[in-house]
């Protein structure tokens, strides 16, 4: 630490004084690191709201019948919870926060290719978020369709759908702009000597993600636009009364929204691929296999959307094809799991908090992935469709996968982002509570779904009571764990011990610059000669 401060006379990006001061220096900054933190802070706010909504829903389900809210409130809660979590946090999450902050540093660049566009994307994000959330407070009541906006309900319901749909449409633009920016950055701005196969795996994951963002988001954009036109101008697209086909809406929606699942999970896998070699002090096993499987997931992920619609009515051939492709897309994910586990073999492991997050990720991600196989099988799907089993499955993937990777990344890169260390024991206590709570919350839902409890109901029959109590108690424990984790991080930003350049002994480029980095990251652009994870 003393070393970094005496040697570096350039102020860090946190201290840098630009054209504007104070808050304006942040919300009009084109520095990729500040933009990354802007995303982080905004997401933290949205996440707290959505997590509280989730907790309230679990409290409602602690007993049969009306406990703390009625059916309509419950419907709008799961809609808002879904919209916020999916469109505002999980889809943009890792790329917008850690991609913005670390992609340029990890490939040895001073910024992304289009810094101004990058700032614009944050502004679009904020505008989209406010429009989407305004639906809750204005007009004829909060939307109650679920985050999928399924036709025909989305244009028949009397609730205030328009801002929600329009907000999601606008958020898509933010996603596209970030995607374009990252692709061009990686094509044009890698440091000298860093060829594609010397690029670290988190940038690789972002590369796959960006292509999905660019190629899939427009489809949902135009679909949501059609819903908007249908509601405002009565142009028939999906309304059977006007000749439209509601099933077509589902197809178009999932053509985007299934690849979106890979927008969520690929960067998470990238984070895990960074954390594991660092704390195993070992070259990652099968670098090429991880790269190829990243691209394979991005590609095959395009052709599996039909598995969301096994009970909606499709031809037999379509059903079989989608089912087989769904099983196929599991293979590259499994390859990655094997690579990570193989990296741990005979490694000298340093058990730090980020590594523990990565281990927990492996555990929950495997449960999520394998339960996905159950749902990908046609006969099982018919039985489990729209039950609590599905809810448990995608929370294990989306929250268990992306969420764990997000917190893992936060604990991994925290010293670099804020120049401070956090309290490790509190971080571990928080993780233990969160992990226990998480599994207590979602594991019973697999059982509930198998025994027939449908999703999206505020009420249930008595036989489901027991597991629901356990699940709700798990939710409370998980939220307490989250509070411990976030409090620890917020406190440490002020009181933590100053961080050195390379607290974890990482080998990628971000550990060669000061913590926190200076405005332009590198005094001199480095020349790369080695593989990113060269430990031996």
């Amino acid at each position, binding site marked *: 630490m003393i070393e970094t401060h005496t040697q570096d006379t350039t102020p860090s990006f946190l201290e840098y004084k630009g054209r504007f001061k104070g808050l304006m220096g942040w919300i009009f900054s084109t520095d990729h690191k500040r933009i990354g933190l802007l995303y982080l802070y905004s997401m933290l706010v949205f996440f707290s709201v959505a997590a509280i909504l989730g907790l309230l829903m679990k409290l409602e389900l602690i007993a049969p019948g009306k406990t703390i809210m009625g059916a309509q409130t419950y419907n709008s809660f799961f809609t808002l919870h879904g919209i916020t979590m999916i469109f505002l946090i999980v889809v943009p999450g890792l790329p917008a926060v850690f991609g913005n902050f670390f992609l340029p540093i990890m490939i040895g660049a*001073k910024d992304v290719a289009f810094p101004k566009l990058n700032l614009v994307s944050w502004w679009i994000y904020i505008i989209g978020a406010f429009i989407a959330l305004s639906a809750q407070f204005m007009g004829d009541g909060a939307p109650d369709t679920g985050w999928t906006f399924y036709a025909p309900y989305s244009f028949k319901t009397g609730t205030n759908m328009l801002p929600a749909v329009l907000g999601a449409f606008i958020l898509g633009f933010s996603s596209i702009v970030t995607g*374009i920016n990252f692709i061009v950055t990686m094509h044009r701005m890698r440091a000298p000597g860093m060829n594609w196969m010397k690029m670290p795996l988190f940038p690789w994951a972002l590369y796959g993600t960006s292509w999905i963002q660019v190629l899939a988001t*427009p489809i949902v954009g135009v679909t949501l636009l059609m819903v908007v036109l249908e509601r405002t101008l009565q*142009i028939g697209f999906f309304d059977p009364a*006007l000749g*439209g*086909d509601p099933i077509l809406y589902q197809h178009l929606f999932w053509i985007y929204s299934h690849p979106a699942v890979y927008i969520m999970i690929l960067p998470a896998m990238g984070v895990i691929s960074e954390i594991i070699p660092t704390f195993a002090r070992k070259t990652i096993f099968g670098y090429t296999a991880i790269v190829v499987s990243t691209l394979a997931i991005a590609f095959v992920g395009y052709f599996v959307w039909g598995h969301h619609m096994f009970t909606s009515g499709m031809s037999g051939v379509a059903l079989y094809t989608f089912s087989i492709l769904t099983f196929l897309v599991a293979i590259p994910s499994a390859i990655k799991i094997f690579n990570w586990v193989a990296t741990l073999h005979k490694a000298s492991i340093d058990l730090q908090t980020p590594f523990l997050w990565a281990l927990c990720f492996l555990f929950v991600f495997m449960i999520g992935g394998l339960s996905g196989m159950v749902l990908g099988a046609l006969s099982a799907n018919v039985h489990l469709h729209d039950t609590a089993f599905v809810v448990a499955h995608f929370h294990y993937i989306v929250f268990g996968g992306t969420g764990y990777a997000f917190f893992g990344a936060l604990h991994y890169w925290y010293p670099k982002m804020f120049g401070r260390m956090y309290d490790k024991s509190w971080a571990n206590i928080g993780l233990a509570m969160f992990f226990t709570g998480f599994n207590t919350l979602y594991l019973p839902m697999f059982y509930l779904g198998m025994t027939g409890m449908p999703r999206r109901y505020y009420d249930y029959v008595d036989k489901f009571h027991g597991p629901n109590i356990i699940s709700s108690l798990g939710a409370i424990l998980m939220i307490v764990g989250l509070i411990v984790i976030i409090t620890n991080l917020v406190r440490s930003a002020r009181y933590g011990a100053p961080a050195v350049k390379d607290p974890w002994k990482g080998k990628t480029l971000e550990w060669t610059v000061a913590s926190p980095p200076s405005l332009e990251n590198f005094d001199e652009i480095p020349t790369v000669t080695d593989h990113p994870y060269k430990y031996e």
Partner: protein
Amino acid sequence: MNNHAHIDEHRDDEGAKTGMWIFIFTELLLFGGLFIVYSVYRYLNPMAFHLAAEELDVVVGTVNTVILLVSSMTIAMAITSIQLKNKKLTLILMGVTILLAIIFMVNKYFEWTGKISHGIFPGSEILHQSSQGEILFFGLYYAMTGLHALHIVIGVGFIAYVMWLVKTDDVKHDDYVILENSALYWHLVDLIWIFLFPLFYLIT
């Protein structure tokens, strides 16, 4: 204090064009969603689509196609003339492009108002009495040509902005990537029309 050149001054024409091309892909996919909807509904209602398409005026459609093709040519010529350091000609050619775009929009305006005065518009009485296929056809007609018209407006705005940059010499013979990008965007607008024209006017 800090004498480092700020990152904003970083210039990469190849990168800027790559970004524009990727953005054009997203635009194509945006319309792609509508093209899918069109093909599904055409497949389901072949007769109604045939009848409805006969309502449209092929002459107006053809004239508009020619106008857009010529405007694509003039904007491409504008790039050549800026390379030849002929600022005045560049501005004239860009102005012609915008003028042609406006003529296109005027034609479109008369076409739409004509339809609307015949009572053919989404939610109208006449359309409600027609077959479902016809409702879908005209819904798609208004949505797709409307979205395309919106792109024309954006393109005109973009080209007008670049014209101003040419005028102030911010775009000149050795630094004209934004002009190339505006031209790329304009070609995209043209290309989409090339697909819309046969789908709505010619296939009957």
